[in-house]
């Protein structure tokens, strides 16, 4: 039922403009919004990748958790007036809950694993958001743009149905609404990435250091965002500074327009991944770079997402096979 709808929409684009055609196209698109899920595998892949990012982010901080969340930590809490505005998301900032951070972290880890396995997806996504926002609000001073983007994605995931069942008969009102919210939430994730680049790019255009191509040099002179090797390199070779600054600027300004072109998209995302890998490894904003790379998955196509989603299954099957071989060899050695 769904395939012909898309075909009709595609055919319609080639026909001369007519009011009836337009009305038909809109009706078709509305029908497709509620009766099918546009990119079910992409939604599943994005959800799993974001939860995986959250898990890694927490595990990285875990060895020194007391330094971040305990009552003796050096992290300041939010001002009381901010906490009072929304107590449910600042529980770990309240003195009576401060030392319960271990339970919150344990709950987050369990929920993230459940989320990746798609167990009770809607309820689990609500709980993940609740626990994550409480954990992060306690240490608001360590949050960056990557955390900000991931928080927004976690909110949109509440509306996404990641179940494999894409061919469900959307006959009842609720399943139609569910399809519409799933489709629009995924679109919103994409728009959020576009908004990030648009605002960041436009703000940079007005900056003097970005205009004269020395922004990268100055960024890499700050101890927290550099590596001695990179600092030395940009000082010796000005061309690297100028190329790096202009590439970043151009990329951010062009991304919002070019990302919608399906032919250019893979190239654009590959360049972006390289830029963000540099941000992770050279500038040291490790999780920020990976957060953006994860967000790029919202632009991937169905085929790619399906392939990636099959990878864990292949690995498990391979490991099972190796284990079986090993046990068989061990048993035969024992028999001999």
């Amino acid at each position, binding site marked *: 039922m769904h395939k012909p709808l898309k075909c009709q929409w595609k055919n319609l684009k080639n026909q001369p403009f007519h009011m009836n055609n337009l009305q038909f196209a809109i009706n078709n698109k509305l029908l497709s*919004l509620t009766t099918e899920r546009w990119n079910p595998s992409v939604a599943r892949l994005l959800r799993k990748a974001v939860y995986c990012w959250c898990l890694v982010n927490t595990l990285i901080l875990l060895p020194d958790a007391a330094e971040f969340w305990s009552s003796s930590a050096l992290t300041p809490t939010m001002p009381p007036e901010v906490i009072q505005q929304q107590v449910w998301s600042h529980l770990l900032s309240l003195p009576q809950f401060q030392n319960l951070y271990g339970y919150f972290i344990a709950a987050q880890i369990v929920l993230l694993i459940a989320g990746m396995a798609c167990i009770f997806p809607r309820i689990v996504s609500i709980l993940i958001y609740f626990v994550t926002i409480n954990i992060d609000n306690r240490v608001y001073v360590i949050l960056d743009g990557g955390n900000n983007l991931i928080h927004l994605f976690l909110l949109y995931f509440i509306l996404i149905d990641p179940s494999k069942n894409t061919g469900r008969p959307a006959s009842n009102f609720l399943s*139609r609404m569910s399809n519409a919210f799933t489709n629009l939430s995924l679109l919103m994730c994409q728009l959020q990435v576009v908004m990030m*680049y648009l605002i*960041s790019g436009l703000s940079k255009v007005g900056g003097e250091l*970005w205009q004269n191509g020395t922004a990268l040099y100055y960024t890499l002179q*700050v101890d927290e965002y550099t590596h001695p090797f990179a600092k030395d390199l940009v000082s010796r070779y000005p061309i690297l500074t100028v190329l790096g600054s202009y590439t970043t600027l151009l990329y951010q300004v062009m991304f919002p327009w070019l990302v919608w072109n399906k032919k250019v998209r893979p190239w654009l995302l590959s360049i972006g991944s390289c830029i963000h890998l540099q941000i992770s490894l050279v500038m040291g904003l*490790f999780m920020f770079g990976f957060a953006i790379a994860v967000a790029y998955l919202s632009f991937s196509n169905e085929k790619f997402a399906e392939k990636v989603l099959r990878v864990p299954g292949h690995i498990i099957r391979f490991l099972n096979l190796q284990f079986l071989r090993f046990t068989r060899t061990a048993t035969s050695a024992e028999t001999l």
Partner: protein
Amino acid sequence: MKHSLQLMLAACLPLFLFGIHTISTVLYNIPENPITREYMPVVNWYMEPQFSQNWHLFAPEPATRMVKLWYRVKVNDKWQHWQDPMQPVLEKHRQNRATYHAKLLYIHGNIAKDLIIRQSYILEHSSGKADSTALQMQQNESLKASPEYQLAIRFVSRDIEKVYKHTIYPDSLQLMLAELYPKQFSERLSARPFSYAQTIEMPMEKFKKPALPHE
């Protein structure tokens, strides 16, 4: 009829909600203009705190100064060298990016930044004393009483415990804030470490063994 009404509602309600959300997100993020000025109270009410976002990543200009918190201690009536408590963490962060040290640097850096903001605020807002010594004493007292200074002392005291490993307890302690500006691009190959540095020495005080907040 009922079927098509259901279809319209199932499509139009989510579309309407997402339309409102998208417009709010755009208005929240774009630079100030006549439209945002008019609708900002409503947009802020809707967007904050759940959908709050800030995408000025290294924009309009990247960070061009470093604020450091240094300290020195007096042991056996002799002042020791100034020390940077962030340096060991910074070294570890440079060796391996995939650790919590990056985030520890945020916390430690934030202590110095908050303290310099508080110090400037006190300097700007303290008045009423004609005598400069009295004015300076008043400023010192205000600074020492501030939560930012207390936090800085806690941070430094922990570092002292690590450095001296409970063997020696210093008599006195002094903090210093250093604002370091990197070399200008034109002088990038020169031997000098910074183009400009400004330091603010805090008042000296007796060293107290650090106590936990609940003690």
